[in-house]
């Protein structure tokens, strides 16, 4: 890695001694010698294992649940259903006013995606818990399911989530998060070219080495300690207290060693039910996703479908950008309403475009709920925007680097969300990457600067 100190000279503080220098990561020796203690390395006498009975259907009504045979499996200690969960319906961002609560900890009236958790089995061994889970008998009435975001928004589509009453999240009375800046239709009418394209991504997994999980241990004084690999201790603590109707001070979260996060450990799925199980049995309880659960049941990155329509002039200026974006939230909100707003805020990318129209839809489907993942709301948008930029540059025969520099935002420009640009540095990144790749630039692009727009 090299530094380019010739950009933004004079803006950096020079007299620092402790920052700006490389120091070895504090955990690296433990990791490479196999000595690091993860939550699952902790040993507790009398540990119970929790295994979930999961929905085999994408969408179904639960007619009955029969646990009698499962209870007879040797080693089974207790079986939990929705009736055991004090506040069974929650949503993770309720404390920052994302509403409504829309997800059961344990499903009871219906299931909304394949793999949804319904019954928790607690047993002395993993094998006993698994055997018993297989013996829980659930009768379903299969319902029609919807898997496509645009199908889900059509009239007559199966209703995925009754707590929303429709298959999308409502943003202050609007059916999507919107941005309106200038007049795109007028600009399209005057543009030399109008280019409309569609982009699509599939869900992907965080693929951590260590699967999501926790162990909850009853302390001597009616408090409970949870050893977890969560990325956010207080999300877990606060949501758990609300779900269990528990005083907050009864709960303690200990974490800090995570075998791969990438956003996959920001949900609050394993801890509340493990806390509940430990409270009801007065025994330590471990709930750990199997690799299959991590891949198919834990939240992936949302699939997104993005339509971009651009107005382009022959000289390379983009005069209008209209974006219609669909986030496939799956069956429940989790972090998707937040990510959808982030997607709207990100448009039209790091470019100054005078007319912008954005509709970002957070859509419910009968799919594994999506949630946080590295860059969500931005990563797939950038894929769409930057492939679109390549197409536009080629259409008018302009070098793609020069095209980026021409349209890149500069300090003082106005963004579509009506915030003035400060601290821009896209132009310089393009210039430096061009240098590195020996990609020739014209003089006008070489002397361009984020500090001011050349006339």
């Amino acid at each position, binding site marked *: 890695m090299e*530094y380019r100190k010739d950009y933004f000279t004079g803006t950096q503080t020079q007299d620092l001694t402790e920052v*700006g220098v*490389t120091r070895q990561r504090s955990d690296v020796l433990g990791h490479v010698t196999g000595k690091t203690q993860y939550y699952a390395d902790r040993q507790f006498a009398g540990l119970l294992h929790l295994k979930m009975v999961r929905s085999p259907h994408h969408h179904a009504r639960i007619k009955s649940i029969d646990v009698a045979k499962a209870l007879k499996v040797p080693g089974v200690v207790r079986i939990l259903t929705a009736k055991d969960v004090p506040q069974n319906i929650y949503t993770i961002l309720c404390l920052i006013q994302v509403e409504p609560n829309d997800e059961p900890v344990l499903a009871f009236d219906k299931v909304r995606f394949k793999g949804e958790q319904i019954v928790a089995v607690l047993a002395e061994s993993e094998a006993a818990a698994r055997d018993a889970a297989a013996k829980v008998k659930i009768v379903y009435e299969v319902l029609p399911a919807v898997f496509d975001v645009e199908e889900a928004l059509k009239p007559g589509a199966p209703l995925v989530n009754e707590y929303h009453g429709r298959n999308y999240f409502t943003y202050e009375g609007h059916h999507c998060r919107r941005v309106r800046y200038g007049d795109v239709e007028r600009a399209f009418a005057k543009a030399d070219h109008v280019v409309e394209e569609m982009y699509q991504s599939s869900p992907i997994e965080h693929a951590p080495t260590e699967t999501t999980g926790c162990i909850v241990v009853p302390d001597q004084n009616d408090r409970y300690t949870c050893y977890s690999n969560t990325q956010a201790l207080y999300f877990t603590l606060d949501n758990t207290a609300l779900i269990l109707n528990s005083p907050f001070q009864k709960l303690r979260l200990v974490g800090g060693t995570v075998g791969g*996060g990438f956003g996959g450990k920001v949900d609050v799925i394993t801890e509340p039910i493990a806390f509940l199980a430990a409270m009801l049995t007065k025994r330590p309880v471990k709930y750990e996703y199997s690799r299959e659960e991590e891949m*198919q049941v834990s939240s992936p990155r949302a699939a997104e479908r993005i339509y971009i329509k651009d107005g382009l002039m022959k000289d390379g200026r983009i005069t209008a950008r209209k974006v219609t974006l669909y986030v496939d939230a799956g069956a429940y909100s989790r972090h998707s309403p937040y990510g959808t707003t*982030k997607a709207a805020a990100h448009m039209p990318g790091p470019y100054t475009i005078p007319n912008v129209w954005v509709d970002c839809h957070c859509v419910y489907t009968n799919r594994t709920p999506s949630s946080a993942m590295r*860059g969500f709301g931005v990563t797939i948008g950038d894929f769409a925007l930057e492939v679109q930029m390549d197409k536009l540059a080629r259409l008018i025969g302009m070098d793609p680097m020069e095209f980026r520099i021409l349209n890149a935002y500069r300090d003082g420009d106005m963004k579509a969300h009506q915030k003035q640009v400060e601290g821009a540095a896209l132009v310089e990144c393009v210039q430096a990457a061009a240098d590195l790749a020996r990609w020739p630039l014209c003089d006008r692009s070489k002397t361009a600067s984020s500090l001011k727009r050349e006339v």
Partner: protein
Amino acid sequence: MTRKRGRGMAAVNYPTGMNLGGDPSQALIHATTTGSFVVTLSSVDLGQGLKTVMAQICAETLGVPTDNVIIDTADTDTGPHCMGTFASRGTHRIGNAIIMAAKEARAVMLEVAAEELEVDAGDLVTDGAGAIHVKGSPQKSISIFNVALAAHFKHGKSISGRGIFLQPRSYPEPETGKMTPATCYAHACTVAEVEVDTETGEVAVLSLKSAYEVGRALNPRMVEQQIIGGAWMGISHALYETTEPYYPDRAHGPVDFNQYLMPGPGDLPEFANVVIERPAADGPFGAKGVGEMTANSPIPAIANAIFDAVGVRVDSLPITPEKVLRGIRALNA
């Protein structure tokens, strides 16, 4: 069989911290009797090196060596609130909380040193090596070890500080989307070079050459670690990964690493990286969040390079050999 080469580029920016703000983090700092400094957090180090960078930020602010700083974190019984480690927020939010706490602790440390040296606290400087002396008179000096002992046992003073950082929440205007999503943005540009096998549709990434503007690289090797790790994830997104290969159809979902495809070390390209620093006005020593962004620019750069190589646009991720091959066949039809 023909292998065709192509190159493509992409440029991106990335906001630091939770979108719309409203995501506080706190830090508490206290000195031990012997002049070590304990930073108490509830933040989680995901393995990216948060603890190391936080120790560096604390040390720089206090004016002590980083080795004298202990990071105690990830226990809700002891650590003050942190929103969590996500949204490229750790360095910026927690770093700023630590600077605030360390400034308060430093003021007490200098007060005690001033009383011990019988000088004015305003005349004192730290040497960064474990001592405090009068500006311009290095011989009139006291070690931080002795300052801490004196604070505890002679003056009855707690060398400690409290810090919090909160970017106040912005509420988008529902009609227009007028909002403040973030206060600073990192930037990147990547040039990808690929080789496409026109018989199998397989894509090999030959090189990724990128420039990253990060505000300030607080620990350069850890910035590079983020860049390489992120780019690897970007290659994986672009060409390999999905839990639903025939989305929106839910069939054929992988359940283990035999079925869930990812590039291995042998699939890594040549990397060349350049770092640019334009300090953020509200960043700790100018730093911006760079963690998430590093996965983003390689994805479209690779897609554009594939088009450059074989004239096929694959506008859906991942760009599998099947999709590339179908595209090549459609061109030749």
